[in-house]
């Protein structure tokens, strides 16, 4: 099929400000948007810059705004867009470095703020720590996060203030707060109840809609809020 591909372009060494470039291309409905970008880079303009690695939705490199929605370019097929007009722009709220590449450092900084690692100083047994399937299920959804930033950069609260920790950081906090093996829920809940924490979430649900791993992010944030207000993890 014939498509019209409109791409956000910005080369800091040449352009004073960003611009759009439109390409008329032949593509297959089952092409991934990533395949189409690779085609443009390979055969039309080698300067086009974007991140990618696994090409099947598990590494989280290629989060982009595709027809106005945050998605992974490798997990979005042309046929999913129901039309022949495709617009690809960088995710919002992070500084654009070049074309579709944004500065991810503030995002990872926010991630690190929530102590995203198991904390349990009790001596470990010789074998595994036991955990029931039910306790394991309690935080299963939030273990799926690939840190692609689709959620955080779809959030109006993050656009307004990049010190707002954002949904991805909350998801990763949730993953440990509700892990029966962890012992630092209180510490994390304190961080999340502070100024840039969960109370800036206005349950807009953009994050949940954007997540390519289908994590129920707004629900997870709700559980964190409830834990803060009730002081209980039940």
């Amino acid at each position, binding site marked *: 099929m014939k498509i019209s591909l409109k791409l956000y372009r910005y080369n800091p060494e040449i352009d004073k400000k960003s611009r759009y470039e439109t390409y008329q291309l032949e593509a297959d409905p089952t092409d991934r948007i990533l395949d189409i970008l690779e085609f443009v880079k390979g055969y039309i303009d*080698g300067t086009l*810059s974007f991140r990618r690695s696994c*090409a099947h*939705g598990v590494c989280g*490199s290629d989060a982009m705004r595709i027809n106005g929605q945050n998605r992974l370019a490798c*997990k979005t097929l042309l046929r999913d867009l129901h039309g022949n007009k495709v617009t690809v722009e960088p995710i919002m709220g992070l500084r654009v470095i070049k074309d579709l590449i944004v500065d991810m450092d503030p995002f990872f900084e926010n991630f690190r703020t929530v102590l995203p690692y198991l904390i349990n100083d009790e001596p470990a047994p010789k074998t595994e720590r036991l955990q029931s399937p039910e306790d394991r299920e309690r935080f299963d959804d939030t273990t799926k996060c690939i840190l692609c930033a689709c959620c955080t950069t779809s959030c109006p609260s993050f656009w307004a203030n990049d010190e707002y920790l954002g949904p991805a950081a909350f998801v990763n906090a949730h993953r440990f707060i509700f*892990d029966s093996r962890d012992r630092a829920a209180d510490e994390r809940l304190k961080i999340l109840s502070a100024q840039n924490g969960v109370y800036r979430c206005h349950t807009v649900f953009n994050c949940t809609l954007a997540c390519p791993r289908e994590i129920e992010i707004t629900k997870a944030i709700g559980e964190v809020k409830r834990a803060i207000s009730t002081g209980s993890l039940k």
Partner: protein
Amino acid sequence: MQTHIFDVIVVGAGGAGLMAALYASKTASTAVISKLYPTRSHTGAAQGGVGAALGNLEEDYPEWHTFDTVKGSDYLGDQDAIEFMCQEAVDAVYELEHYGLPFSRTPEGKIDQRPFGGHTNNVTGKPVRRACFAADRTGHMILQTLYQQCIKNHVNFYDEFQVIDLLIVNGAAAGVVALELSTSELHVFHAKSVVFATGGHGRIWEVTSNAYAYSGDGASVALRRGLPLEDMEFFQFHPTGIYKLGILITEGVRGEGGILFNDKGERFMEKYAPKVKDLASRDVVSRAMYTEMREGRGIGGKNFFYLDVRPEVVNRYAALDGRKRPDGSPYIVTADEIISKLPDIADFCRVYLGVDPVTQPMPVQPTAHYTMGGIPTNKYGEVVIDDQNTVLPGFYAAGEVACVSVHGANRLGTNSLLDLITFGKHAGLRAAEFSRGATLQPLPKDAADFALAQLNQLKNSAGSERVADISREMKSVMFDHVGIFRTADGMKTALEKVRELRQRHQHIKITDQGKVFNTDLINAWELGNLLQLAELITVCAINRTESRGAHARDDYPKRDDANWMKHTLAWEKDGNIRLGYKPVAITKYQPKERVY
């Protein structure tokens, strides 16, 4: 140009690199250099499990795991290293659990385990539940968990730095030269120990499960510095990639009871592996599929088969096989159970195929998957550079870039994740230990020159060749002729073509002349690595006139232990490839015919 000094430099931030960094940083100043953000590494794509004889669901022993791995390797694996890995496996998995890895659990709360290809009860020969898993995201969980631990332990990261060169001074490792992708500035990392954990080179082939990042950088950098690579003719094709796309469908699907069918609706693996059938070793299954294809029994006469995990099919064949649950009851599954154990597979099928795997079978074909060969090391991760296993002081390698060799001619599923954590750990420990007693080698004044020359050659070439064209032609010829079945004629065709492509690569056109994220230049440099390795692989494959594991030749269909029970070593100097050999370490298991 900036210079940084550390005791230990780790290159690559997948499972092996992060494990090495965690252990090295306990006692030595350590930095990890990676061309990707660590969580983008390809370890995250591993699905089905990590092998360890925990015996949580049934009787199992590290000795059985050892034998299965030796047999899986078609007797080319070094038995001392394999035994070491399988013994270490049990504690290594518990250690991951203690780090917080969210394994799936048994009803008693223990780590859950599933069957995987080639892993057997050594008495009955039937599949054994040895793969410790977290749904079908085990690699993702390992990568995330290790990265979390690195944050906890304040490991230094240089993310999005591409290592271009390895510095060797006075016969010892002295550091690396890396390009900062966001600025194109060259940095010299001066160190006492260097650990390479850069992954494999599966992007050489057209249909591949491998990430774009898998361009063989570490192996190629070492080769350019005069070091040998080991057993490069051995590359694994995984039987079940999504048709055309190559995206991996875990062997765990067959572990959960999925069956492969040909066009006549036959469960063809019965013919090729009467005992374990669909759970035979990967090389065996991939070859069986090709044989079926050649005989016209691909689906609709095409190059694919159906992998069927619909509950009614799983249950019918489980009953025929007499498969039981650990409590002795018959193995019967529901659609919900399958989805809960294989959620990502279900997602891939829906996104890329528009197929729901519990109501429709999945179209699959063999896909390029895993690099068995690589930088030769001993079982401590120390790089060894000749047939005497002479150690290159201060240089270590672990994970897919390394060849210990624990996988020999064919890797068993779940042993790659085990390889990462075991040898990543020991390489990190050794690297730190070595750095304590060592002094920094003096840096030559021209330390960055070789790296710079490589990049400038590409940037300044006046040619008009495209990366995309050369890459496509390489992948196509390598998939056709240096893939699952090989012949001397086919491989010679490939060799000629790859040599022509290497010439054309000298005349590549780089459109982007900027400094900020010049991925045009990096793609071209990576392609050079792939071409260099493709040539070396083909030369090694032509040279080995036998069939063993993943190296299957129509013109030499039998394994030839009298002449070929040995590892290949290959060097490249001034464009010429030189081959040598070293013996296989055989301790307990004498080679015998391999039947599943």
